[in-house]
């Protein structure tokens, strides 16, 4: 079988699996967030944290919950790393330095999982399991909770209430993430991923010399790493490491896990707003962009010219032989179009244009399908902007799902789309303008610039993948990417929740023949166009000086 055919077959299998699962999972998630009943274990948790799970929250209350929970998460994770040296079960690793501890704490709480450390050389069992793995679950659950709050804003009328954050957080974790991750972890173990608490092994190599192999609860972390679109690997090599991602089958499974919740949430959205067609329209938008990016990526990676590439069946540098160009391309696009950031191949080694595709995927705001929760709310914000333009063009005050997009709604949506470009561009510009930060670059020229641009694009968009090459473990990069992650995660959430509150207070406008039909393909097309043009225009100069300059040379 040719590598191209193998890639296409993998792609088709993946699409088939997603098509099968998204309806039942999406409907199930809608039920989780709408149900009135609490599980017994949930009641215990509510009692322990002193929360009333049935109290409806207005948007400021909901936001306070999100922020309070996240601040506690950052502090806890920071302390855990700083105290690693005196904690038991740390495999002898010392405490992490302050700048890196801050960076890592923020990184995992913001669902970014940017790693400026080598996992197997820095973090012991306690930090990995009690710290990082826990945040892998709850940071994902926070993202879904905020998305669900926005969906409620569309679905509810004449109330300012968005549900209960604590109940959404606990349910998302216990009823959605834990069960799926458990099943996935078992499959991963069955396929060869490791799951133990053993120490460091010295292993002799074929070519002489020796190598250190760590044990660890890898499969369980791997499952939630992908499912929660986290991306922080147990090992530095991330999903390229055979202990994390041993076979082509686990590779496809991991891509499936990355995509399954973000795509299925469109169904949840449709069910909760009472029109599954609206959910399909959003799904179609996400899917169109994702598929276009995958196709482009495969095309540029397979078609790369040069005798070495031809002999290898494509641009194989930095890619694992067991995944090939196809599996690596699908993974790379899926991880950068979601806020995952896990990698099974090295984005820096992709062709110039291929690297550009991974960058552009993040620049779109990670909305196709995006991170768990964050993808849906990011896409809905873009839909609000597109509805505004389209609504004007049909001669009515724009409305989406019956809710009017007036000055207040526009202000919030406009602020949302400003944040990540501002963070990514300003931090990159500062890094390029200052004398020392450019020393972290591995390469010179356009590729070196891409490394820095990639780092801040990844951090601001809470992706977490790295272009590789850049030495990000400096005080400058640890602090600045940490800030970019914090602001890039929580400022948008403020605007999303404020928007949700504003929408929930509105009285819906009934649908008539004069209403813009947002469930039709025409609108989906407009939405895709608006997303590509608006983000494309924002980043075009920067992209021109990085991947385009390299790719077109």
């Amino acid at each position, binding site marked *: 079988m040719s590598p191209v055919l193998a890639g296409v077959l993998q792609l088709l299998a993946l699409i088939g699996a997603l098509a099968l699962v998204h309806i039942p999972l999406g409907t199930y998630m809608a039920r989780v967030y709408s149900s009135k009943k609490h599980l017994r274990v949930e009641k215990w948790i509510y009692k322990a944290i002193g929360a009333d799970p049935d109290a409806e929250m207005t948007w400021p209350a909901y936001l306070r919950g999100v922020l309070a929970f996240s601040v506690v998460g950052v502090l806890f994770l920071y302390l855990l790393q700083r105290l690693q040296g005196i904690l038991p079960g740390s495999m002898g690793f010392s405490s992490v330095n302050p700048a890196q501890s801050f960076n890592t704490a923020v990184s995992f709480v913001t669902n970014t999982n940017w790693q400026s450390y080598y996992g197997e050389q820095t973090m012991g069992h306690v930090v990995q399991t009690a710290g990082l793995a826990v945040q892998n679950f709850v940071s994902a659950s926070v993202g879904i909770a905020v998305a669900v709050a926005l969906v409620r804003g569309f679905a509810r009328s004449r109330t300012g209430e968005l549900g209960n954050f604590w109940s959404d957080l606990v349910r998302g974790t216990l009823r959605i993430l834990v069960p799926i991750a458990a099943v996935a972890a078992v499959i991963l173990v069955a396929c060869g991923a490791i799951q133990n608490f053993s120490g460091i092994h010295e292993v002799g190599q074929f070519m002489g010399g020796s190598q250190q192999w760590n044990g660890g609860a890898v499969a369980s972390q791997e499952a939630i790493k992908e499912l929660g679109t986290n991306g922080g690997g147990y090992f530095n090599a991330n999903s390229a490491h055979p202990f994390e991602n041993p076979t082509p089958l686990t590779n496809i499974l991991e891509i499936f896990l990355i995509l399954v919740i973000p795509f299925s949430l469109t169904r949840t959205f449709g069910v909760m707003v009472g029109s599954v067609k609206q959910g399909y329209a959003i799904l179609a938008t996400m899917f169109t962009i994702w598929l276009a990016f995958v196709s482009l990526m495969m095309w540029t990676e397979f078609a790369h010219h040069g005798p070495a590439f031809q002999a290898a069946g494509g641009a194989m540098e930095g890619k694992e032989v067991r995944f090939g160009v196809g599996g690596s391309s699908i993974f790379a696009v899926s991880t950068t179009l979601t806020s995952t950031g896990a990698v099974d191949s090295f984005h820096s080694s992709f062709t110039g244009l291929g690297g550009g595709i991974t960058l552009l995927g993040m620049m779109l705001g990670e909305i196709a399908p995006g991170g768990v929760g964050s993808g849906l709310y990011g896409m809905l914000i873009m839909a609000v*902007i597109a509805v*505004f*333009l*389209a*609504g*004007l*063009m*049909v*001669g*009515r*005050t724009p409305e989406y799902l*019956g809710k009017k*997009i*007036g*000055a207040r*709604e*526009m*202000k919030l949506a*406009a602020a949302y*789309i*400003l944040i990540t*470009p*501002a963070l990514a*561009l*300003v931090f*990159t*510009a*500062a890094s*390029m*303008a200052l004398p020392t930060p*450019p020393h972290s670059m591995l390469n010179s020229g356009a590729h070196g*610039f891409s490394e820095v641009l990639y780092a801040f694009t990844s951090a601001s968009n809470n992706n977490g993948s790295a272009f590789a090459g850049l030495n990000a473990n400096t005080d400058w990069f640890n602090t600045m990417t940490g800030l970019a992650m914090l602001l890039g995660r929580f400022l948008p959430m403020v605007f999303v929740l404020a928007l949700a509150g504003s929408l929930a207070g509105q009285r*819906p*406008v*009934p649908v*008539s*023949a*004069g*209403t*813009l039909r947002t469930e*039709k393909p*025409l*609108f989906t097309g*407009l939405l895709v166009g608006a997303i590509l*043009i*608006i983000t*494309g*225009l*924002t*980043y*075009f*100069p*920067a992209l*021109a*000086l990085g991947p*385009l*300059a390299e*790719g*077109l*040379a």
Partner: protein
Amino acid sequence: MTTDIQKHETQKHEDAMSTPTLAPHQDAPTGHTAPEGRVGAGLFDPKQLVRSLPDAFRKLDPRVMVKSPVMFVVWIGSVLTTVFSLKDPGDWFGWTISAWLWLTVVFANLAEAVAEGRGKAQADTLRKAKTDTVARRLLAGGTSEERVPGTELTVGDLVVCEAGDVIPGDGDVVEGVASVDESAITGESAPVIRESGGDRSAVTGGTKVLSDRIVIKITTRPGETFIDRMISLVEGAARQKTPNEIALNILLASLTIVFLLACATLPPFANYAGTHLTMVVLVALLVCLIPTTIGALLSAIGIAGMDRLVQRNVLAMSGRAVEAAGDVSTLLLDKTGTITLGNRQAAEFVPVRGATEAEVADAAQLSSLADETPEGRSVVVLAKDRYGLRERYQGELVGAEWIAFTAQTRMSGVDVDGRKIRKGAAGSVIAWVEEQGGRIAEDADRIAGRISEAGGTPLLVAVQDGRGARILGVVHLKDVVKQGMRERFDELRRMGIKTVMITGDNPLTAKAIAEEAGVDDFLAEATPEDKMALIKREQAGGKLVAMTGDGTNDAPALAQADVGVAMNTGTSAAKEAGNMVDLDSNPTKLIEIVEIGKQLLITRGALTTFSIANDVAKYFAIIPALFAAVYPGLDKLNIMHLSSPDSAILSAVVFNALIIVALVPLSLKGVRYRPMSADRMLRRNLGIYGLGGLIAPFLGIKLIDLLISLVPGL
């Protein structure tokens, strides 16, 4: 059934009473203008551009510019490039870019100035009407009067106006009847009747009394009169940004900030790449990227929208109301005058058993000759048209004694050649026949009932001759639906707007007319409370409601409706309550108002889409120009093959400036609007302004580049 007939009779009575006071121009035939008069028409005179130039330069004042954030950024950019050019006076490129950037700002101001200029002309005409008047104020006793300047009147003063006097201020007639020339505000030369009491008591300052004497109670302070408000409205002085305009401004501001960031962060990137970007080039890139096209035209679009209403003789008291008009989903239309012609007309003659149709027609015609009401005239006309009965004149019948129609008797007729013929409301005619000792034919009642059920009004025709007094037959009076109304309602339905007919008729009659006219719903036997309840019910469902009204009892509903159009002939209370006034007092205009509201939003959306889509081409012009020297591969993006980097940047800037002027006519006229479903409209506008906006600048920039490359020495 008898009650129904009686109800008709009271109504007819009212109609008859009010007929003489109807403004002569109120009976506009169908109320709907010919297609060329539809929204979207309007001439644009290039001379206006030249005339408005001084204003455009005056608007360069930064205190004025700051109101439009996008253009203010261009203004700052122009200042910056000029300063940098001054530092390097030999740099022709810097000067040329600076010049075109200033032109971009001037063109934007020009668009606004032209839009305002159209209103100014109208304001001047109005000011002429507002010449200083001398008021004849009645003194406390009410018998003697003093002469005071019109500006010194206070609310509550009583003033006297006689033939030839200009009415000194807004008020209500409290005594007398007069014909008034209101052409100063309506442009309609035929005089209208104003009288004390009832719904036609309001007079407007600046209009002229043509006959008789009236006493007016002043209701508005000088300086706040209707004509003052009109002047400030058409001049745009009172213009405030509408909610939707504010929302759009926010989006534009946010796009501007995004592009500002993209440009401001570029120098360090470029330095790293090994090239230095000058301030002139950076500003040029920024101005090309920010949405200047829509930013420049936004306020002109708003002013022109209001102006289009003024040209249709509608005064909107706020821009908010015009926008709301585009969102209206329920239209409340009065039946009489809007859906049907003002009066019922005879449609058929139905004989009772033993009589013939011709006999009925003959008797009906004879008895109607003394009935000057429109209904009476229509009987004569039908007899002539349908039965070939020549119209006879009262003078030809010698010895006839005519009984004229009065509101009291509700009957007309003639006594001639020993025959007594009567025609009129059922109750009156039955009473008359019984009085003459005749009997009532059994089937008269049945026929009348059938006509009522069909939505018509039965009039009885009776005769007394040698064979005694008896009913001959029934005249079927019918409401006549205006031509083209059904099609209009179909259009409205396609636009997603529901029409509700409001009528005082009974439900049966209302239903029949509603079906014939093709309205979606009707409210029969409507009281002001019913209207109010209907509006609130629709609004509770999230719908926006528009209605027209003229009476004082309409005022609460006009105030409650999202778009309340008061007729200029109406009372001051109604005009105060509504948010628009129709100077022509033509209720059908509501439909045009909705179209203008929609057109306003569509124009904004279309030009915004166009503006954003334009940026793609500009990038393809400017980015290779800036960086192809250091990264030769980027020259592949120069798909337009522009002749030189300088020329590429300049072409983009020039295109950006010229497109504003090119789109001024469109922004003033508005995007062509035809009623169609939202889907089709979106497809059409996306095609024209989205795709068009993507492609047009590629062609435009290439063309300008070709011209520039022809300039010797470049």
